[in-house]
């Protein structure tokens, strides 16, 4: 064998050195349109020799008789032609519908769909661009199986959570995001213009292990648009303008209904009824007034092209979005400038330059929590006008709820982000088989933030007041004791901060590829990576802004009342490093049996020397069954079975968590003065290590009837050693002030699931084409272990000061809901008295709770009768993406569905005078009136205990996007000097089908234990937009 290999190598060398080469020229064309294909590549099989087609699709190269020429172009099927001395070859390439030759970006290299052994998914530029969303992660919603996107906030600049194959940790469960080889954090995705993206590749299984300790939650690899060789400069313009509107408002009581229900509730508690006249009409619709129509717009310009040695893609863009709540008090604007420049600076030495500059400006309103604008609007009562006596009304009957309009007016904040992301990469073709890459990527951002807190008066007794009275006199504070101290006025406040973040990445790797004989192909990648992440912030708060006016809100102007006693400054800084080496080897026999193995060693400063270095890796294999001789099922054109297993890690915890910090509180009184000493802060854990995920994937890829692609995967993903800081034995010292339990590796979560991706493309004629993608994900999540000595990890509370209702607990999905199960309503006192189960405090009209532990008593003091009543994790998610073209008209639609999750309705304030949702009209009013909704009372009831009544089905189907476009015929476009002119109208989120009562059923959270808890979520807007795409 060895000799044979040597012989073959020798033969190759000999043949390339001595054979008489002849000159060949030709043209590469599209088989259907006969248009030339500039940039198509022509290669002599088994060598690196080749050429690229020029602007006219023409090429020239020298070849020997017997050589096989391989013609390829992105989006087209490869074609091989044997060279027998022809001088001119015209080759027509067919569009590749089956996508098997589609290039897929994997870590530190590329592969083709056919060759892949791991579970990956790809989304292309067009699919992303047509979604018209501000952030690329939003464009992934429903795009591929196994990737679930949930929304944190629909506000401008609001972020989304990306979960690949389930939530596997209570810590950071977001994937690693890499853009052009540069590591982005998920917040950084705001800086990226979706229109600049060429492709998004998602590594879902253990083969993501090439990214080692960062890869446990999957990897998303984004490539931005590059130019093409030998193409004329092409100027592209695109843009859209749209109007956004809330997709839904809550169904709240109007003034008359409100008065009637409140009278009833007060009377039930033997209180004087508040309204003598309940005929109050509609009253104030707070919500209706709080929501407004708001613009959204995006404009892009780019020039791309290339010569024989250089390609470029240069562009700029503007994106602007105002909020559907608060208008210009909640906005997000982004300016982008981008240069992608690739050139051969020496023969075989290629330099890639990527530079992206982003300027972001945003303003935000309080959202997504108790006290947010929408929360206030939902709880403000309809019998009060928005303004009385020329000022905002006080809503004095509800404590803590303030006039949302006064709140919007008094909110001032500005955030500016200036960011430069870049990469310089050198690629050197050492020989036919070796390529070396060296690259530096960096990500530098400066964030300036300013917030003005004016003196504000929301009405007597409101906790949000910052002024002492309606005249906006400052409040006073006592500093020090009565004798030696001073009384100070606390004026209007300004807070400023300046933060800078610098990440950089230095990487080098060597790729090797060689085919031995005609059947054995060996590929290998070896390299290193060094990543440093650092950040720092300086911030300051000053009181006494002159004139209580935002125009004077600057730290340089604050009066610093009382020698600046109240003012304060702060700073922090951090630094993390990750040092890695990796090695990957691939082998295939006839592209029929494919094997891949990889190993990566990571050293992370997140961990102490005991566990600083970790080894990760995977093994995977694939078998292209359809290439077997025995395979003769006609309907199946392609069939591949994939198996992979791999170890990956997650190191996303705060820096230095393994060390003993001294930030505990150690104060004592000596000589009657408080003396600050030091005390241990977080308990150290030198053995702290990364979370590890072992994932097994089995997949089957099929192509049926030439144009029907099917990819399925089944996976089991076990994450062990979850990073968290559960309660610990007092003997380690956690009882002291500021001394926190150490972070440790404890707990285990298993995600199991099934994924299906179906692609169907159909092109019966030149005028008509149709494609559809359907994806389906079934997921099962279970916590299989919690830290020793801990029964569960508590999550979020219900209502104000209520019980903790979400948990991480063994045997349940992560963040499941625990509470009482209801079994209808007690109708009569006799029913309560004769029931074998005693429920303390029960009255007719109250919920009948289920006795879970069978002791015939409902206990409200402990957990014995509480049970699982919901989970925020959907059973399955689906996406449907349709694209059709007929002549010049095109249609795109994207639909997503989320099924089987629950949401906690947690935005109802339980206050006597707070407004209520209209379902309360169905309340229990007497025996037989309803068995679903409890009675209303202002008195104490057990009905406010967290039960399944407050849990709703969160399933929904949402049409994410519809777009209808028209391409002007070539003749008309050309008259205007254009090569392409398309206009379209579209709508984002036009329809949502759900039974959920709240604003938006898409209630995500980056904290798995707050997932599905709706505190009055800022809803995603629906919008109507018109746009254009022009190419010159």
């Amino acid at each position: 064998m060895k000799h044979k290999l040597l012989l073959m190598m020798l033969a190759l060398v000999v043949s390339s050195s001595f054979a008489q080469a002849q000159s060949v020229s030709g043209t590469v064309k599209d088989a259907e349109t006969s248009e030339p294909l500039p940039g198509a590549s022509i290669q002599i099989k088994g060598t690196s020799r080749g050429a690229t087609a020029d602007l006219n699709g023409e090429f020239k190269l020298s070849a020997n008789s017997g050589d096989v020429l391989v013609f390829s172009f992105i989006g087209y099927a490869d074609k091989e032609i044997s060279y027998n001395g022809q001088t001119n070859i015209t080759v027509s390439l067919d569009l590749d519908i089956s996508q098997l030759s589609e290039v897929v970006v994997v870590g530190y290299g590329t592969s083709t769909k056919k060759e892949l052994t791991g579970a990956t998914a790809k989304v292309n530029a067009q699919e992303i661009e047509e979604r018209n969303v501000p952030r690329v992660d939003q464009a992934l919603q429903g795009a591929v199986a196994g990737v679930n996107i949930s929304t944190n906030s629909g506000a401008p600049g609001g972020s989304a959570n990306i979960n690949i194959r389930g939530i596997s940790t209570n810590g950071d469960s977001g994937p690693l995001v890499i853009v052009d080889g540069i590591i982005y954090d998920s917040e950084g995705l705001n800086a990226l213009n979706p229109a600049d993206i060429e492709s998004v590749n998602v590594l879902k299984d253990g083969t993501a292990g090439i990214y080692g300790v960062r890869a446990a939650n999957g990897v998303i690899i984004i490539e931005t648009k590059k130019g093409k060789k030998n193409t004329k400069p092409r100027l592209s313009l695109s843009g859209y303008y749209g109007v956004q509107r809330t997709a839904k408002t809550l169904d709240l009581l109007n003034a008359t209904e409100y008065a009637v229900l409140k009278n009833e509730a007060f009377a039930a508690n033997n209180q004087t009824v508040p309204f003598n006249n309940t005929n109050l009409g509609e009253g104030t619709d707070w919500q209706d007034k709080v929501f407004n129509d708001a613009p959204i717009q995006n404009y892009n310009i780019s020039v791309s092209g290339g010569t024989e040695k250089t390609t470029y893609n240069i562009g700029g863009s503007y994106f602007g979005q105002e909020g559907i709540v608060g208008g210009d008090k909640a906005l997000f604007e982004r300016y982008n400038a981008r240069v992608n420049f690739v050139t051969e600076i020496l023969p075989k030495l290629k330099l890639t330059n990527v530079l992206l500059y982003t300027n972001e400006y945003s303003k935000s309103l309080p959202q997504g929590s108790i006290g947010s604008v929408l929360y206030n609007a939902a709880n403000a009562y309809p019998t009060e006008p928005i303004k009385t006596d020329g000022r905002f009304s006080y809503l004095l009957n509800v404590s803590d709820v303030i006039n949302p309009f006064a709140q919007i007016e008094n909110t001032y904040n500005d955030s500016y982000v200036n960011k430069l992301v870049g990469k310089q990469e050198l690629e050197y073709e050492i020989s036919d088989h070796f390529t070396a890459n060296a690259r530096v990527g960096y990500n530098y951002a400066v964030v300036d933030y300013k917030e003005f807190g004016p003196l504000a008066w929301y009405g007597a007794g409101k906790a949000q007041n910052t002024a002492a009275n309606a005249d906006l006199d400052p409040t006073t504070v006592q500093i020090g004791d009565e004798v030696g101290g001073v009384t100070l006025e606390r004026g209007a406040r300004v807070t400023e901060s300046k933060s800078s973040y610098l990440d950089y990445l230095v990487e080098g790797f060597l790729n090797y590829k060689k085919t031995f004989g005609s059947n054995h192909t060996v590929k290998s990648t070896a390299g290193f990576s060094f990543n440093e992440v650092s950040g720092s912030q300086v911030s300051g708060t000053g009181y006494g802004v002159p004139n209580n006016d935002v125009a004077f809100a600057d730290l340089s102007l604050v009066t610093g009342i009382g020698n600046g006693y109240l003012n304060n400054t702060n700073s922090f800084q951090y630094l993390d490093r990750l040092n890695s080496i990796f090695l990957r080897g691939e082998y295939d026999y006839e592209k029929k049996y494919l094997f891949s193995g990889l190993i990566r060693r990571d050293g992370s400063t997140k961990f102490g020397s005991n566990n600083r270095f970790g080894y990760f890796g995977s093994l995977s294999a694939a078998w292209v069954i359809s290439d077997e001789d025995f395979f003769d099922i006609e309907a199946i054109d392609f069939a591949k079975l994939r198996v992979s297993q791999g170890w990956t890690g997650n190191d996303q915890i705060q820096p230095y968590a393994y060390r003993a910090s001294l930030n505990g509180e150690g104060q004592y009184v000596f000589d009657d003065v408080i003396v600050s000493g030091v005390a241990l802060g977080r308990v150290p854990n030198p053995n702290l290590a990364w979370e590890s995920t072992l994932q097994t994937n089995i997949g089957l890829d099929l192509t049926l009837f030439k144009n029907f692609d099917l990819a399925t995967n089944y996976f089991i993903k076990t994450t062990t050693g979850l990073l968290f800081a559960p309660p610990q034995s007092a003997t380690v010292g956690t009882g002291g002030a500021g001394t926190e339990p150490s972070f440790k590796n404890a707990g285990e979560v298993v995600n199991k699931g099934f994924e299906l991706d179906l692609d169907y493309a159909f092109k019966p004629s030149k005028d008509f084409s149709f494609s559809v993608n359907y994806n389906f994900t079934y997921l099962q999540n279970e916590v299989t272990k919690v830290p020793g000595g801990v029964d569960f990890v508590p999550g979020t509370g219900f209502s104000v000061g209520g019980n903790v209702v979400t948990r991480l607990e063994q045997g349940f999905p992560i963040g499941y809901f625990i509470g009482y199960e209801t079994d209808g309503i007690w109708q009569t006192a006799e029913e309560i008295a004769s029931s074998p189960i005693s429920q303390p405090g029960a009255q007719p009209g109250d919920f009948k709770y289920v006795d879970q532990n069978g002791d015939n008593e409902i206990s409200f003091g402990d957990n014995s009768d509480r049970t699982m009543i919901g989970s925020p994790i959907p059973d399955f998610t689906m996406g449907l993406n349709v694209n059709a073209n007929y002549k010049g008209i095109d249609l795109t639609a994207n639909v997503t569905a989320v099924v089987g999750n629950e949401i906690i309705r947690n935005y109802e304030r339980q206050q006597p005078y707070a407004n209520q949702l209209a379902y309360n009209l169905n309340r229990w009013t007497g025996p037989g009136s309803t068995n679903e909704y409890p009675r209303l009372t202002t008195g104490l009831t057990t009905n406010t205990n967290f039960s399944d009544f407050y849990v709703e089905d969160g399933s929904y189907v949402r049409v994410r996007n519809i777009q209808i476009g028209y391409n002007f015929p070539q003749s008309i476009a050309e008259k205007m000097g254009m090569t392409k002119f398309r206009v379209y109208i579209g709508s984002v989120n036009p329809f949502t089908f759900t039974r959920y009562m709240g604003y938006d059923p898409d209630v995500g959270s980056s904290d798995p234990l707050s997932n599905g808890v709706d505190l009055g979520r800022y809803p995603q807007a629906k919008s109507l937009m018109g746009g254009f795409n022009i190419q010159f």
Partner: protein
Amino acid sequence: MKFYNKILMFFVAVLGLSFLNACDDRLEVDPLYTIDGDSFFNTPSDYDRALTGAYDLLQTSYLNMWIGEIASDNAIAGGESVTDTPGLHEIEAMTHNGVNNELRSVFSFNYAGVVRTNYLFSNKDKLDFEGKDEIYAQAHFLRAYYYFQLVKYFGDVPLILDRLISEEESTSLERTPASQVYEQIEIDLKAASAGLDWTNSVKGRVTKGAALGLLGRVYLYQDKFDDAAIVLDSVIDMGPYSLINSTTSEEYADLFSVNQEGNSESVFEIQYSGQEGGSYGCLVCLEGFAAVGFQGIRQYTGPEYGDGNSYNLPTQDLYDAFDPSDIRRDGTVLDIDAFIAEQDNPGDISYAIGGGGHTGFYNNKYIKRLDELGLPDNDLTSPVNYRLLRLPDIYLMAAEAHNRKSAPNDVKALEYLNDVRARVSMLDLSLSGQALTEAIWQERRYEMSGEGFRFWDLVRTGRAASEIEGFVEGKNELFPIPQIEIDLAGGNWSQNPNYN
């Protein structure tokens, strides 16, 4: 492949590997601008600051105050309702078990104190400097104090010395027999007394008297009367202390005021300040004495006192135990209705009765007074110091030691007893043997009530079952180890006898 390519590749490989090696070194990153536990103890002041951190946990003594009284026949839990600090209500009723927040606090606060002293001991050899011995002598005292609390409440507890244990190790610790813990406490206190002077210019520091006084108490709790007598005699004979006479109950109560802090009877006080506010959510963070505000009169408006949360209310039994002529009765117990009636304008004075119980009495030694308010927050942060060791206590302990030691010296015992009585104008007694013992115990109740010692005195003298309703012999001498701590320590400890 051409030759120069091979050389190039070789260089690339060498460069790559050396870069990698350099990079591994770069993983040694120290946190920026952070005081870090691993890189501390570089200057003498570092040691002093760590010592201050170790003192901090003394300030959790509000729990001594409550549990020592409420568990005994002296007081009830009180408060707003029976679910207001339920742990104390359970202790009052002697129904407490392994799930009790207050007992968990005792366990975790005192271990935090132990860990903070061990942090000092584990770095003892890092630096030598003048004054180091004094710092470590104080640390010995503190460790002994914290362990004494633990062994007193829970019996056998893991004895960890001179090192910090990891979380991992904490799950496999064994409970150390109480006798060994006591042995270590004695060693620590002897080391403390050897390294300290009788006085310290800084108010609040541990002195030789504090160490010896606590050692005397530790001996007494183990019935080591011979040793106790010697040690306590030395405090009385050599210490810079003297008894203070009081002629009225006001004068007697004033001994517990801010004004009288550090008076000649004061052997050791836990120091508090009213300068910093606090929150109910973190009582361990307080710099003021939480017990005082909590023990204040509920919704009181009137002269002299401030309003509070009606915790730890003295019982009729305690009030009736006193000789009516003893000024210490009204000095110790405030009969609120009688007090109001005595005022010029009783109609203008009001207070509320809490749902957690009412006896008509308040703790007059530690109670919120209008002239002793904490400034930013007077509910939680009283500036009043907690008197951990007072000279009359030393006298009474010495009396008991002499009376009960192997060769009793009742003359000396009686002399000490009568000294304590004489300072509050009580007649001399003339007793010996068991009668004297009983008299000394009674005197302890008169002198020490309301300060958190009663329960322990009853337990150590075997009288708890007869004096405390619900007290079960063979069970309630110790408190149960908090169940969660058993679980967190790996679940291997057995609970204290007769707690399920």
